[in-house]
């Protein structure tokens, strides 16, 4: 991604819907701004979306900051979410954040790297003005959720691409289908664990995976989508 420009102006077909979703994410997590960038290698689509104020977005692009901003270009290569304090000594940080300060844009934030099964990469950044202590506590609290949200958002962007619409059929394992089928039949996680002779935690692992593959926020939605895609039977 670092070697190719991220055009924050190149909005995908469903840009408005996705930006609206990013605003919801900000509200849910209690942060001020979000920015999403990805390079989907299958159709080569470059996508950049942000909830930042228009003046900052325009200035940021005119300065070519999207090519040097380490919260995007460097953080996208990480495995774990990257706190912006880790990026302070990296190239580009000083330039971008000096400007950000002039526009009263928060300096505290987190970059969540996203990886897709086809080798595609993306990053969701979240920013908030607050004390280091507040930020540390909030970060701990949202760390799991942001990664689920980031993956979901990336999925929404992929779904909105025309090429991917056709090749995208989730590949659920037999175990995942079986567990969704029992869930559709009204069984609880513990019931299913007993039926399949698994630990409840293993059932949860398969459910997590199934939700991620179906791009579902919760198990109910995953069951709904699985039925819609004829992966399991309606009961």
């Amino acid at each position: 991604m670092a070697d190719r420009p991220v055009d924050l102006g190149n909005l995908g077909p469903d840009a408005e819907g996705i930006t609206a979703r990013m605003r919801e994410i900000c509200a849910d997590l209690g942060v001020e701004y979000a920015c999403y960038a990805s390079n989907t290698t299958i159709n080569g689509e470059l996508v950049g979306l942000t909830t930042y104020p228009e003046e900052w977005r325009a200035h940021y692009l005119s300065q070519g900051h999207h090519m040097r901003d380490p919260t995007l270009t460097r953080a996208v290569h990480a495995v774990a979410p990257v706190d912006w304090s880790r990026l302070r000594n990296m190239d580009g940080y000083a330039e971008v954040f000096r400007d950000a300060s002039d526009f009263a844009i928060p300096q505290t934030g987190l970059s969540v790297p996203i990886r897709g099964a086809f080798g595609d990469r993306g990053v969701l950044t979240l920013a908030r003005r607050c004390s280091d202590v507040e930020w540390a506590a909030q970060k701990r609290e949202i760390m799991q959720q942001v990664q689920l949200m980031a993956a979901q958002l990336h999925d929404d962007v992929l779904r909105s691409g025309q090429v991917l619409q056709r090749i995208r059929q989730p590949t659920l394992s037999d175990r995942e289908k079986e567990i969704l089928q029992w869930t559709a039949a009204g069984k609880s996680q513990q019931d299913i664990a007993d039926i399949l002779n698994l630990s409840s935690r293993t059932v949860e692992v398969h459910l997590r995976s199934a939700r991620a593959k179906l791009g579902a926020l919760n198990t109910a939605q995953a069951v709904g989508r699985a039925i819609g895609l004829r992966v399991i039977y309606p009961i």
Partner: protein
Amino acid sequence: MILIVDALNRHEFTDILDDMYRLRARVFGERLGWEVDIRDGKERDCFDDLDPAYIIGLDDDGRVISCVRALQTMGPHMLSDVFSDILDGQPPVRSPTIWEATRFCVDTDRLARGRGAGTIAHATCELSLGALEYAIESGITDVIAVVDPRMDRVLRMSGNGAYDYLGKTVDMGKVHALAGLLDCTEERLERVREMAGITGSVIVDEEEFRAARVRKASRAATLAQYFMDQIDAAQDSSELQAVLELADTVLGPVSARAVREAARADSAH
């Protein structure tokens, strides 16, 4: 002490990564007989090119004594791409809060047996703790560890055993491999800590580690300069011999040889 190296800081720690690839070559290539690709004494595969995170154990001298590699399960990883036999043809588990851990190893050549600091058991616990701490801090709920049955047993003995397995045990050439599930919870962290007698975090602060490395390098340079000066100042062969012997003791044979060669090159000018 545990150091986390990923795509953001790896350019600073290339020597440590090389040391790690050499450890992997000795463990997986030589000792375990896995079919791995070794070049210049280093073991690397295509997943090392996918920006993984490495959890690396270092001894007091800064040598790599243990390591494990982490990748997100949402992206390409070993279970999805090369170890798919384990899953019996089934698609892999994918979740933003589940990581895959591979190439878990400890330097059994350099470390002692038994219990306490400097032992294989202690290094194993420390590495497990480093990986668990890093995962928990990153909001990860579970890790899928691809290991051989021997390592699976070693993990169980260090309080970090799998709570379940995915797929089945398969033949990977000379060895078997299986995918264990490890929950990333405070309970597990506490269990391993108690087993190892370790309290508090094992992960080293990157800034402090960096500063310590600079201090160590400058100390070594000062010492080397001191011996260079002494070699220059030596009046006769017995004095020179005494300086060289002292350098051998203080710097260790490898660095002392470098100083001697530098002094010889100097005097040639």
